[in-house]
């Protein structure tokens, strides 16, 4: 699936959040969205996913090829996991398969498949409250994979986790993207994550959010390693790109009451 | 009087049944006795008794109810005289049937079994009256379905709209209802006498510690009763109510307290209709009061240890028939 973001503008009541965002996402590409707090990353991702209607502009699906059995081409992975606390792990996954006319057996097979992929089989009957943060996010990933998406839209999927779990899951994400060649848009604050996972990094400017630069990282994802000097160089480059705006964003009163 | 202008608080209802009190006050009988009386008008009968039991007032008159006897049994009250009494010679409370029930055959008191009966509360005087009527008319009181409706207006509303079949009510309500065709009078309580409707009472403390004041009060009250009887209970040779020379004067006095919001021409007939019999000298029908207490006790409405002899004090006014 090839996505084209065309002239997206978005304003909340008084705040102009995004202005004239234009770029394309190639099939199999991982695009990271970075930028200071409040620059409109989440807004843009919601628009791409059809969860927010943009004030102007459109998201076009140019190449409609989707994987076989795809139930939901653009699939969101939420930062706060968004698991139903009253359903088990398996129940949370099968939820998104239930209204698509699949037979019970088909659903169960898909659930089993993604549980195996994410190493969650032993926890299929656990409730969300019984899981650690990292496991909850793995359930979120499993649920997303169960619909065989054409593209994953991930809004800071690791930021609710502690540092150690984050490192562990980051490795799993890198492996997943390398293995499946999944198309993905990945919003993050963490430049380290961006340089580990993305083929291209879109850096946004603050309010109204506009594209400051699109930074390409041409090392195959599978070959990237923690602490690789090239990656550290990319990370510093990105940091320099957004540093001043990040400092300004931090200084800013969030609510001038 | 020995002590001039002793203060007494009187608790009364704005009903004709309290008329002797109003007369005693307005005609100065209380003042003549050296009592500086203040009358507080209460909205309901129950609090009158409570006010005397708790010492908030000195004297009161209300109807006898189960609640009254229970309160009296706790020792704080003494009944010292009479209020209304049902007498065969005078119209008292009437037994009414709703139009619907009347048309369906409830035309006399002995047909009440199987019908519903409106009353304000379990243990109220209405409850006693239907029980008493049932006993004397020879049917089982249990065969009448009781509908407690909290207030007289609710009872009237329910009867008028046919939601209950019957009730017993004072004459000044019963007669207009019957005249307006809103209900039918199928009997009178006076046909099932004796029935001592209510009494004059004071606190035990007054009886024990201020006898003299009670005596003064009783004298004034009796004068009020005498005026009431002369003005409102005068009859001709056939036993028909007639006006006496004091009737207008007494009506004027009572009107200050009862139906005060109505013009005189509307209020006077209501007062006359409501003027039930009071015994001479306000003598209490002790035998009937004892019978009432027993009736309530038999049904568990009044505690078994309530002893009428302990809360009735006939040392001020001799009992009826003594």
């Amino acid at each position, binding site marked *: 699936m090839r996505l084209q973001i065309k002239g997206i503008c978005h304003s909340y009541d008084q705040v102009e959040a995004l202005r004239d965002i234009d770029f394309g996402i190639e099939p199999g590409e991982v695009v990271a969205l970075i930028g200071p707090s409040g620059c409109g990353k989440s807004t843009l991702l919601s628009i791409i996913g*059809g969860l927010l209607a943009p004030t102007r502009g459109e998201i*076009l699906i140019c190449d409609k090829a989707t994987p076989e059995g*795809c139930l939901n081409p653009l699939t969101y992975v939420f930062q706060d996991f968004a698991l139903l606390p009253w359903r088990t792990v398996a129940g949370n996954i099968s939820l998104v398969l239930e209204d698509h006319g699949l037979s019970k057996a088909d659903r169960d097979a898909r659930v089993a498949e993604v549980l195996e992929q994410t190493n969650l089989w032993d926890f299929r009957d656990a409730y969300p409250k019984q899981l650690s943060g990292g496991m909850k996010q793995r359930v979120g990933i499993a649920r997303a994979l169960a619909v065989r998406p054409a593209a994953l839209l991930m809004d800071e999927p690791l930021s609710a986790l502690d540092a150690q779990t984050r490192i562990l899951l980051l490795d799993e994400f890198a492996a997943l993207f390398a293995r499946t060649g999944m198309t993905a848009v990945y919003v993050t604050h963490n430049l380290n994550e961006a340089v580990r996972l993305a083929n291209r990094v879109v850096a946004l400017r603050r309010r109204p959010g506009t594209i400051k630069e699109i930074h390409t990282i041409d090392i195959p994802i599978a070959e990237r390693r923690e602490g690789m000097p090239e990656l550290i160089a990319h990370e510093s480059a990105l940091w320099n790109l957004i540093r001043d705006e990040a400092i300004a964003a931090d200084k800013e009163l969030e609510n001038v009451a | 009087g020995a002590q001039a202008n002793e203060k007494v608080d009187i608790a009364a209802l704005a009903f004709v049944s309290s008329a002797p009190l109003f007369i005693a006050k307005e005609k100065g009988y209380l003042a003549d006795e050296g009592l500086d009386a203040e009358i507080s008008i209460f909205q309901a009968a129950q*609090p009158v008794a409570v006010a005397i039991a708790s010492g*908030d007032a000195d004297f009161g008159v209300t109807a006898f109810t189960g609640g009254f006897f229970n309160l009296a049994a706790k020792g704080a009250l003494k009944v010292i005289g009479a209020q209304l009494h049902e007498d065969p010679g005078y119209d008292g409370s009437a037994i009414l049937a709703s139009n619907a029930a009347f048309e369906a055959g409830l035309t006399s008191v002995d047909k009440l079994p199987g019908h519903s009966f409106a009353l304000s509360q379990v243990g109220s005087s209405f409850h006693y009256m239907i029980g008493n009527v049932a006993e004397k008319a020879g049917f089982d009181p249990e065969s009448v379905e009781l509908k407690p409706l909290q207030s007289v207006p609710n009872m009237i509303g329910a009867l008028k709209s046919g939601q209950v079949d019957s009730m017993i009510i004072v004459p000044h309500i019963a007669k207009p209802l019957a005249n307006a065709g809103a209900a039918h009078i199928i009997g009178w309580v006076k046909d099932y006498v004796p029935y001592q409707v209510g009494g004059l009472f004071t606190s035990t403390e007054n009886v024990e510690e201020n006898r003299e004041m009670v005596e003064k009060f009783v004298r004034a009250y009796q004068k009020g009763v005498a005026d009431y009887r002369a003005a409102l209970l005068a009859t001709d040779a056939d036993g028909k109510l007639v006006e006496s020379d004091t009737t207008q004067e007494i009506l004027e006095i009572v009107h200050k307290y009862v139906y005060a919001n109505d013009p005189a021409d509307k209020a006077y007939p209501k007062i006359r209709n409501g003027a039930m019999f009071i015994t001479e000298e306000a003598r209490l029908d002790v035998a009937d009061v004892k019978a009432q207490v027993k009736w309530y006790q038999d049904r568990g409405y009044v505690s078994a240890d309530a002893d009428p002899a302990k809360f009735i004090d006939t040392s001020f006014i001799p009992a009826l028939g003594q």
Partner: protein
Amino acid sequence: MSHDISEVRAERQSAASPASQVRFRATGFNPKANPVAAWGFFVAVIALWQLGSSTGVISELAMPSPVAVAKALWQLIVTGDLWLHLGASLQRLVGGWIMGTVAGLFVGFLVGMFSWARSPGVAFVSALFPIPKIALLPLFIIWFGIGEPSKFATIAFGVFFPTVINTFGGVDNVQRNLIRMGQSFDLPMWSVIRKIILPGALPTILSGFRISSSIAIILLIAAEMIGAQYGIGALILAAGNLYQTDQLIAGVVVLSLLGLCVSWLLGRLDRWLLAWR
């Protein structure tokens, strides 16, 4: 298995428009407040009600017409009776509410802060809270007489229990980390109470005031059942007894408006005391 999946997919693709724009799907489930609709609804209900009354669909006995209610209300205003009733009721409301609230706050803070008060306090409140106050009226008459004290007591009792519950709920809700912060800086206990627990519990306590003031208004009727010559509750009771339904509804409208006023006042208080939120 893959057969029916591809069918599903084929359907979905054919359903998509050829322009192939990403479809907006986060519709609904976000009801918006709309004051105009609220007012419109009231106007519509009253208009319908008046229409029903005028055409006789709603009998005068069953429900007085809005015009009749308005007339009754107007009558109360011009004769000045309304102020008499309202004055008497307000005095009882304010007096009873303050008594109940002060006692409730005190007990609530004890229950919220001290282990010795906790379980007995909670048990006591949960046993006595559900007792209908009307049931106790006969006893209230004996305990407090038939004058104003019994009216204050009825309202105060009604207000006391929810205030206790809200106050200790509020104390419980004070973030423990704030208390720990105070203690980590060695603040004395009295300072922790005054500077952290009290302001921290304030939002819950204030929202409890909304409940307790509603309860106080509801209990006005019960309070004025006994020996009240004036008062909105007494007015409603008398009107009910006389089946003057227009006056009755007029009284009810006054209570409703009173409730709105109180809630508006509490809103101001909220905004003033909780400006930091």
